[in-house]
């Protein structure tokens, strides 16, 4: 089953960001070695976001993130594991950072072989 781990966190200064960035590769490597890494990636800060929305047939393109909240999405990992317990087990091993919250959700559709 696929589970997505959404990584929420407050904005980090450069130092915290650099330390955190260095902590991820071994974790991803461990996920790959255990055969549970389906997809994932870290995201640039919300200031780099571009938002697209629609009003009728109008496209409205804006600079910046959709929601201006204290907690931002820093990245995500899609885990291919048998059940939620296994997903939480892996989520607990993700690198820690101040204020970081991990949200684990089952993906809507299991991949069906065509």
């Amino acid at each position, binding site marked *: 089953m696929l589970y997505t781990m959404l990584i929420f966190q407050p904005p980090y200064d450069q130092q915290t960001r650099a330390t955190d960035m260095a902590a991820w590769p071994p974790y991803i490597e*461990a996920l790959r070695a*255990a055969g549970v890494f389906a997809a994932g990636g870290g995201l640039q800060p919300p200031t780099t976001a571009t938002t697209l929305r629609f009003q009728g047939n109008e496209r409205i393109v804006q600079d910046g993130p959709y929601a201006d909240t204290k907690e931002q999405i820093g990245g995500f990992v899609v885990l291919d594991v048998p059940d939620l317990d296994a997903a939480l087990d892996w989520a607990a091993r993700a690198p*820690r950072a101040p204020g970081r919250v991990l949200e684990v959700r089952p993906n809507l559709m299991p991949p069906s072989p065509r």
Partner: protein
Amino acid sequence: MAGDARRAVAQAARDSRARLVAFLAARSRDVAAAEDALADAFRAALETWPDDGVPARPEAWLLTAARRRLIDAARRAQVQQDAVPTLRAVAEEAEEVASSGTAFPDERLKLLFVCAHPAIDAGARTPLMLQAVLGLDAARIASAFLVRPTTMGQRLSRAKAKIRDAGIGFTLPGPADLPPRLHTVLEAIYAAYGTGWDDVAGADPRRRGLAAEAIELGRLLLHLMPDEPEGQGLLALMLHCEARRPARRGPAGEYVPLTDQDTALWSRPMIAEADRLLQAAERAGRLGRFQLEAAIQSVHARRAETGRTDWAAVALLYEGLVRLAPTIGGLVGRAAAVAEAQGAQAGLALLQALPQDAVAAYQPYWALAAHLLARLGWPGADAAFVRAIGLCEDPAARAFLEHRRAAPAAALPI
């Protein structure tokens, strides 16, 4: 005055809750009904004791209060006809015991055995014990076991329904069944001690998890089965691990491996108690997994007096342990001990003989492999460090491994 009464309720809750739950559940086989009835009784106590004063026999008072709720439950359970007479009979017996002035029978040992009954899902045994015996709530247990609180709630309800519906008896196993049944009780208690820990000996001391609760359960079991060597062994094991908690972190919160720990920080009273328990267990002449694990920790504890670790003794005890129970943790522990006693190459050979799929996500395996490869100056050390770091849950242990990974081979202790 009101504060005194509240403290009296809290005290009664601590002292008597398990005895009251066990007494009621042993008669109705309905743990949930017993817990609900007692929750009501404690609520009533909080309401009335501050005004009326603490009753002379708090337990009898609570039992009478719980009885009313049981009768209500019997009334509501009319759909399940067979439950009604049982609950009524329990209510009557509770009243009898409460008014007779005699101490009511201690059924806590039966409750422990029921919680760890083989018919109950293995993943529910420890949570059930923590809730039924110690009164922990599902949310707290869920966090310790890293599952959703709703999932834990369902797991607990299912287990309690199983006891009631399958009619699991509140009886003690006979002599033939006792050793395996006792083992599931001991394992359930130890699982509470090790909640969420890959490796108990190196775990984060700030995250106490349910260590205190597990020790409380261990003490209760020993109180109820004072001559059982494996019960003594389990408590000794937990006390040895607990004794080192203050030494497992440096002043800045950094991870300190067992071999580098300042023995002055170890708790001497806990070590002494653990060793006394272990000696008493040895006199019974029945060796078991928990006695062996405690004996291993006891050898490590001796470094506080001798200044050195007898690795040959540790390796020998691990040899006995893996023959009895070849768990992956025991096998990795043996490899570590052999590496110290006979050299890194011998330890590495044992590690490499382990089935690769069993160790893919087992952090202590990769940490040990990394250390031994680095010590030998062999290739593959860096890849093993990366795996060990990636599998870490504890940030301090991760920082320790990152530091080791960066250290030149010559700087590593041989």
